[in-house]
């Protein structure tokens, strides 16, 4: 059986009965299949911890790669982060871990020990992509020299090193958590209250975006290998990713805070482009083009004030009498709920939107209709609803094939079957705290 056939690791529905593997030529129904996922047959080693690197590796797993997560003996930090059901910590049931580590197997390995390094080397012999990161505070586990040695001994290997500032250049030796990356690179908002500190992106978004950017880069390297025949090292810097995007205009906070905002009023452009309250929450009001503003006027039922000359000059509304303009619009907004407004904006083609909370997103008729969310079971965490895939591919759809692993769940499979270590050797490695 050719190495490209991974049928034993795949669910039966992906095994095509009448095809011939384009790589090994195998036609046996039970062991061979066409690449029905984009990364079928690609092996990934996830040496990452917490968010960015694990998310990068999970995206590759969603695309069909076979991902082995290498955890320290006490497990990935995300296992301790939560959220937990009823706030009771359980390393096997942390929401963040489960979310970032489906479609992976897990082994434990202390790869800082000599014996651990040897096992890691053995695993690398069989790997296409290895995803690494720094420790939580940004201190690098690997130097560029280490990675170059790894690349030299495995020229086909793609080495993805995700660090706050990269392995070379200024700041490469800086300690940094995501609030630091966010602040230095432009993802921290200054458009806040003058009496309060600037705000970083919420809910680990800097780390998540870095994971997506690293997966983008990894795919480029894999394509390059397929065309030009060589692996490479990707020195992926989180701050570089964020910094190269820092060109977009920031949005604007609720008008009530406007007087205290750091953004000068003239930067506001055309009315409206800010947050206002409605009956059960807030709405981001936005209608940059004239027909969109007219749509908003129609949604409001064309009240008399919109016919006055001064409320047809949207620049003046924004810059000269914003409070008065808001008072008119707010009267209408406060008489409507978020979901009523959503329907009106849709009907009248206005690109404004209510600020939804998690419950409203999970119950959104639109996302339910598109079957975005996915119910998945887990032996410890039980059934939970997870967000779906990053994008949709017609020929090679992303697939959920495997629940998030228990810590070290696949030690026997990977070290025993794949690396063919004897039971004695495995027992010794366990005793010595290597696995």
């Amino acid at each position, binding site marked *: 059986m050719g190495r490209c056939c991974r049928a034993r690791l795949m669910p039966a529905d992906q095994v095509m009965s009448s095809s011939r593997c*384009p790589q090994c030529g195998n036609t046996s129904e039970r062991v061979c299949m066409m690449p029905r996922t*984009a*990364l079928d047959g690609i092996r990934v080693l996830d040496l990452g911890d917490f968010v960015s690197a694990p998310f990068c590796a999970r995206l590759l797993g969603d695309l069909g790669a076979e991902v082995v997560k290498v955890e320290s003996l006490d497990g990935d930090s995300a296992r301790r982060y939560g959220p937990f*059901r*009823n706030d009771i910590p359980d390393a096997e049931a942390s*929401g963040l871990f*489960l*979310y970032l580590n489906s479609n992976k197997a897990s082994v434990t390995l202390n790869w800082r020990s000599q014996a651990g390094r040897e096992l890691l080397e053995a695993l690398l012999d069989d790997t296409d992509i290895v995803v690494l990161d720094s420790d939580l*505070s940004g201190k690098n586990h690997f130097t560029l020299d280490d990675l170059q040695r790894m690349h030299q001994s495995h020229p086909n290997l793609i080495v993805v090193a995700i660090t706050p500032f990269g392995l070379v*250049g*200024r700041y490469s030796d*800086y300690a*940094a958590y995501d609030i*630091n990356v966010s602040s230095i*690179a432009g993802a*921290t*908002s200054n458009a*806040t*209250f003058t009496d309060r*500190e*600037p*705000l970083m992106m919420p809910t680990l978004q800097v780390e998540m*975006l870095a994971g*997506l950017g690293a997966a*983008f880069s990894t795919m480029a390297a894999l394509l390059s290998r*397929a065309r030009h025949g060589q692996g490479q090292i*990707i*020195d992926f810097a989180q*701050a*570089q*990713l964020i*910094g*190269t995007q*820092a*060109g*977009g*205009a920031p*949005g604007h906070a609720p008008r009530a*805070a406007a007087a205290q905002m750091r953004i000068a009023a003239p930067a506001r452009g055309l009315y409206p482009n800010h947050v206002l309250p409605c009956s059960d929450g807030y*709405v*981001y009001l936005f209608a940059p083009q004239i027909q969109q503003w007219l749509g908003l006027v129609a949604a409001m039922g064309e009240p008399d004030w919109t016919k006055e000359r001064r409320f047809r000059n949207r620049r003046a509304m924004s810059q000269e009498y914003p409070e008065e303009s808001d008072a008119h619009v707010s009267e209408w907004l406060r008489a409507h709920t978020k979901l009523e407004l959503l329907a009106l904006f849709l009907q009248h*083609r206005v690109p404004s*939107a209510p*600020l*939804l*909370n*998690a*419950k409203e*997103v999970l119950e959104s008729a*639109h*996302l339910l209709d*598109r079957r*975005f969310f996915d119910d998945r079971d887990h032996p410890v965490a039980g059934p*939970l*609803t997870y967000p779906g895939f990053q994008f*949709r*591919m*017609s*020929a*090679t759809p992303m697939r959920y094939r495997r629940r998030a692993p228990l810590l070290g769940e696949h030690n026997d499979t990977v070290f025993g079957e794949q690396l063919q270590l004897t039971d004695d050797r495995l027992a010794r490695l366990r005793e010595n705290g290597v696995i």
Partner: protein
Amino acid sequence: MLPLTGYRVVDFGTALVGGLSPRLLADLGAEVIKIESRVSLDGFRRGRPTIGSEPIRADESMWPELQGIFHGANRGKRSVALNMNKAEGLELVRRLIALSDVVMNNYSPGVLRRRGLDYESLIAVKADIIVVSMPGMGDTGPLRDYLSYAPTAGALSGMAGLMGYDRDRLIGALPLAWGDVVNALSGGMAAITALYHRERTGEGQYIESSQLEASAALMGLPYLDYVMNRRMVEPHGNFHPLMAPHNIYPARDGRWIAIAVRTPDEWASLCHVADHEEWLDDQRFLDHRGRLANLEALDRLVAAWTREQGSEALVGRLQAAGVAATPLLNSVDRTVDDYSIQRETLVPTTHPLLGDMLLPGFVFRPMDEDPVAAVDPAPLLGEDNDYVLGELLGIPEAERRRMVNDEVIY
């Protein structure tokens, strides 16, 4: 050789997500041809440009070339000016697609179909074509026709509602047009993945990367909190459950410093650098749990100290002691920061009308590539008409002149 050298991308994109996503492929070596026209300009080319707050003094016909916002999302591309409202213009686009590998667009659902450029029609033109659509809400579903910009998807994914200090001190607006950035990377990654699959099997495909789902796919943490505990995460400032202090503090010179402390060692180092050893003995701050419970008092003490320090010296001393501290840089700061230049976060270019400019750089750069001294600027509208229509499609010059007169090339 760059990863995508030799591929050709037809780019119907507009504004940020539509412009940026194909540009990411241009950065990796693809030849990206932007299809545009005076009939319907890219939103980033529209309006009267300003320098600072002063409207620019230039002939109106030149305005589309002078909009600052256009250049970052479109540098390194080619541009052909084709009027797709004319059948002949549309036919030229089809002929170009027949010579291309990827088609990218951020049209509303249905637009490609109305023009006969949907995936099903294009496979008759090029059997293994890859079509990437990046609509706001997706091709299907009740909100399919919802008009969407960056704030729209930010609001509907639940992300924007988490930006704020607490329930009553909401900001509700995200920096960086976040949703556009997310979906540009998402659509770009999908295109590369599809190219990889095509290299292995010869098969093209259709891809849909909606801005709403691409954003929602990054929101597992607050969604799972609701799923597990029926609890809604509220805006919580710069709070981090595993770190304290963890905030952005003022310095003497008006700058802000982000400081984050996770381990006992880091906390001790901070206290030493601050010359406030007594904080180590303060009963409120003995461990992480204590510091978290007394966060407001802690933040006040740290801020009172940082407010007396110069930002640069403070960052240097904290970093030397192993504490994660960095300055908050604004877009102007970054143009003079070594990091931006060394890491190609900002890259120099020279535009024929605007002169020297610094533009957003590369997400990553293959290490065996020479560091680039400069990148190509964004194209003038129709700058590559002769290359695309003459060289690629082989239309004789006289014929091209007629097309200009007929406003097919327009």
